[in-house]
C-alpha cells in the first residue's frame, strides 16, 4: 500500500516517527509530509520512509518598507529621543499603531504559511495518490477540509485513519 502520513505542524512527532516506522516494517511504501525542524531531533525516522518537509516556520510575511519606516521606526525613534516625558505617548503608539501592525503581519504570515502547506499537500496527494491517508494530528484534519472531501469523492476506496496501527482490521 502507498501510505501518506500527514503531520503538517509536527505536533505529535513521536507518533509520526513510530507509526511510519511500523508501516515501513509492514512493507508499505510510506511518505511522511511534515513540518521539519528541531522537533524531529532524536526521533530516529526509519530510513525507508520518504519525506516531504514543509519548512513553513521559516516563512514570514514582509512589511512594506514605507510602513515600517513611517509607522514603526521613525515615530518610535523620535519618541525615544524625547526621553521620559514622551514615554506615555510611546506606549500609546505601540498599543494603537504598532500592535495592530503586528497582528496584521501575524495574520498574513499565517495565511502565507497555510497557502504553502496546502499547495505542497495538494501536489503530494496528486502525485503520490495514496491508498491509505493518515491524518496524524489536529492540523492535518484542519487542512484536510481543503482536499480530503475531493480526494474521497474521486477515490472513495482511499482508506483514511488517524493513526497507523498494526493489526487494525480493515
Amino acid at each position, binding site marked *: 500500500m502507498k501510505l501518506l502520513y500527514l503531520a503538517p505542524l509536527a505536533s*505529535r*512527532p*513521536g*507518533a*509520526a*516517527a*513510530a*507509526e511510519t516506522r511500523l508501516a515501513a516494517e509492514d512493507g508499505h511504501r510510506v511518505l511522511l509530509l511534515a513540518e521539519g525542524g528541531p522537533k524531529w531531533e532524536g526521533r530516529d525516522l526509519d530510513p525507508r520512509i520518504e519525506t516531504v518537509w514543509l519548512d513553513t516556520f521559516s516563512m514570514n510575511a514582509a512589511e512594506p518598507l514605507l510602513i515600517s519606516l513611517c509607522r514603526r521606526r521613525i515615530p518610535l525613534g523620535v519618541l525615544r529621543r524625547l526621553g521620559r516625558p514622551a514615554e506615555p505617548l510611546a506606549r500609546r503608539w505601540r498599543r494603537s499603531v504598532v500592535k495592530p501592525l503586528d497582528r496584521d503581519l501575524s495574520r498574513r504570515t499565517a495565511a502565507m504559511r497555510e497557502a504553502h502547506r496546502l499547495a505542497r499537500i495538494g501536489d503530494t496527494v496528486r502525485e503520490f495518490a495514496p491508498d491509505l491517508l493518515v*491524518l496524524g*494530528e*489536529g*492540523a492535518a*484534519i*484542519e487542512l*484536510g*477540509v481543503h482536499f*480530503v*472531501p475531493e480526494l*474521497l469523492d474521486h477515490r472513495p476506496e482511499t482508506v*483514511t*485513519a*488517524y*493513526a497507523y*496501527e*498494526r*493489526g*487494525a*482490521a*480493515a
Partner: protein
Amino acid sequence: MTARRVAVVTPWYPDPHLPFRGSFVRAMVEATAPGTDRLDVYHLNGWPVTRDRERLAAVEALQERLLPRSVRPVPTAGGAVLHRIAAAVERVRDHAVHARRHAWTLRGALAGEPLAAPVVHAHVPMLGGYAALENARPDAKVYATEHSSFLAEVLADTGSRDLYDEILDRLDGCFVVGEPLFALLGEAFPHHAAKIGYLANPVDFTSRRPEPPAELRRWLSVAAFNERKRIDYLLRAFADCRAEDPELTLTLAGDGELRPELEALTAELGLAGAVEFLGAVEPDRIPALMAEHDLFVHASRHETFGVVVVEALAAGTPVLATRSGGSDQVLDGVEDDAGALFDVVDDPAALVDAYLALRERHPHKTDLDRARAHLSAKYSYAAVADRHHRIWFGGER
C-alpha cells in the same frame, strides 16, 4: 449480546507520542479485561484545532465524514480491543466545550449507534464520562473514575461545574482514586455524596527484590519535572544529606519543562557526579528500577493517588514521601512499616530529618513485607479487578 461485555471510554491512553499518559487506564484494562467476555476501549484523543467558527464548521463537516470510516479496532492490553479516535477540539479553555466535543466525536465514530456494552466505565467524568453517558445504551450502567489533577480548575468554572453536576446525577457510580479528590467532590456536590466512592488504580505486585535494602544510599525519584513534583526541593535536601554521607546517589526518572533548570541546580549544588538524569522511563521498566534502588523518595506537593509509592513497595523498596494527600492515604496504617512520611513545607530540613530518622530505624524497625501485603490486598491487579467486576456485574455500587 454477551452479559459481561464492557466499554471503557477514556481521554487518556498510552500512544507512541505520549507513552505514559493514561498508563493507569491501560493497567486497569489489563487487570479487568480477562474477567469479561469482551472489553472495548474507546480512546478519545483530544487534538486542538481552530476556534474560528467558519473553519470549525468545516472541520466538523469533515469529521462527520471521517469518523465512521477512520477508526479501526486493534488489540490492546489484557485481550481488550482498542479504538483510537481523534477528537478535534477547538482551542478554548472551557471544559464543558471539551466535554461536548468528546461526546459528539464518539457519536460520530460509532456512526450514531450506541455503545453495545451493557456496562460502560469512563475515565475523567467531564470528558470520558459525559461522552459515555451520551453514547451508552438507555439500559446501560455507566460508571466513571476521576483522576484529574486539574479538577479544582474544572469546578471553578460555573458552566463546567453545572455540567459536572449533571454528569454525577446521571452516572450509576462515580469513583475517585484518593482522598483529595473525594474531599473536593464531596464539598462541591454534597447532594451526590452517596454516589461517590473509592476505586484504586491497579499496581503490578508480581515481582519484587529478594531482600530488603541493607542501607538507604541509592535514592530514586520517579516524577515529572514540573513545579508540583518539587524536584528542586528534593535536590536541595539530597545535597544536605550527601554532605554527611558522600556515598549517597540519586536517580531521577522523568522529564519535563524544568529539566534545564534542574540540571543547572544539580551542578550548582555540586551534585554532578551523584545525580543521574534518566529521562522519561517506560512504565514497564519501573518495577525493575524500583528494585535496583534502596529508597524511593517523593517530594510532591499534591497527589490524587500516589501510585509510585505503591509501585515502590510492590518492588520491596522503602519510601520517603510527602503527606501529599494521595501518599498518606495509601500508606494509612503502614506508614512506619513502609518508610516515612514528611510534611509538605518549603524547608528541605523536613526531608533531611525524616531521612535521618528512617535511616536509624531501617531495617530493624520497618516491615516492608507487612506494608507490601497490606497494599497488595488493596491495589494488586487481582484486587482491583475483583472490585471492578463486583461493581460491574455483582451489584456493588
